[in-house]
């Protein structure tokens, strides 16, 4: 398995409450779909803005990719709650979202692509996670791979090739909780990954030898 994650933690959410989530402008809302609202930071973690309401934000400080990854801790306490992570999203505020998205819902980690708002699920991994475990998505070239960290150990899911969405974009999240308002996500990270076929040269050349 390739090491994951290879990119830094961007926000541990350990600060005063924010509604809407901002971190000094690093976050903007909302992520996709017109019904999404900005999420809120409560007690050092991410909550939806209201029960049964999709709440999402994108990391507005920079775009990443094309090869990139995104990850976060799952803090759900109900199987009916949902956490989405997004990458390669060129226009995060669009109502017809384009990008790749990772979803954790009801014991399944799945990857979908969204092209101009039309979603296609491209893999499914059955895994039950607990609060404090993590999920992540890596997109390298045309290969999308889901990851999860259970009991402190990262594992990879089912890689699959998809060529629909290329180019750089924003990374983002969305959360949804049923019934009552509760913590859904913590410790968000991600960024640009080094292309698989790139390399670096370590050492010195003596040009006179050539």
């Amino acid at each position: 398995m390739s090491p994951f994650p290879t990119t830094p933690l961007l926000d541990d959410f350990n600060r005063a409450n924010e509604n809407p989530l901002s971190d000094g402008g690093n976050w903007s809302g909302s992520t996709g779909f017109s019904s999404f609202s900005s999420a809120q930071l409560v007690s050092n973690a991410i909550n939806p803005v209201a029960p049964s309401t999709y709440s999402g934000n994108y990391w507005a400080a920079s775009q990443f990719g094309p090869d990139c990854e995104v990850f976060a801790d799952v803090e759900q306490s109900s199987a009916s709650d949902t956490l989405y992570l997004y990458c390669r999203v060129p226009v995060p505020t669009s109502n017809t979202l384009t990008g790749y998205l990772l979803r954790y819902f009801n014991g399944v980690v799945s990857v979908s692509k969204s092209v101009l708002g039309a979603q296609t699920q491209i893999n499914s991994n059955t895994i039950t996670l607990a609060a404090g475990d993590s999920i992540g998505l890596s997109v390298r070239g045309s290969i999308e791979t889901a990851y999860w960290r259970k009991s402190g150990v990262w594992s990879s899911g089912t890689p699959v090739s998809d060529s629909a969405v290329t180019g750089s974009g924003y990374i983002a999240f969305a959360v949804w909780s049923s019934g009552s308002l509760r913590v859904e996500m913590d410790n968000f990270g991600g960024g640009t990954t080094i292309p698989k076929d790139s390399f670096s040269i370590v050492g010195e050349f003596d040009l006179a030898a050539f």
Partner: protein
Amino acid sequence: MATQLYVMPITGTGTSGDARRPKYADTDLAGQNWAAMDFGNEPMMLVATATNAALGAEADVLTVPLNLDQNLGAGAVTTVQNYFEARNIPADWINTGYTYRQLVRLVACMFQIWQRCQGMGLAQLFTGGVTLSTTFSSLTLGQRTILLNAAHSLNFDTSSLTGASTMRQIIKALMVQFGGPIQMLDLTI
């Protein structure tokens, strides 16, 4: 358990609550790990999962044998050609000289190219009278532009294609130019 490949129709409308997905995602594939590759916005998918007898028994599912390195027999050529051609997947090039791995690789390449077109905004093409025999010049300007842009974005050579080229000829000319690994679960084809 070994990973096996299946070709099947798609279900779902594409909304967040009803995503396009393998037709049997909620039944035969429920609780299973799987990976799927769609034919762009055409309603077909190549699916990789552990060998699944219920899936293999579905009338509209084509099962690829576990041994991908065996050649297709004459009977299998007919079966595969009939299945694909009925679903607008060119198959007249398939013969007993191909292994299943080569067959799946080329079909997957077609799907990847159509995904590139999908990403550029091409809606389902094979509908409203468009077939594999439709010529390039018969398509709308928007469709032609997307097809050309998609081919060029993949650095494909389109010099052999003209307005009189059929969709069958175009897809076959492009599929052999697709490079790089194609990954589905633990299979690299």
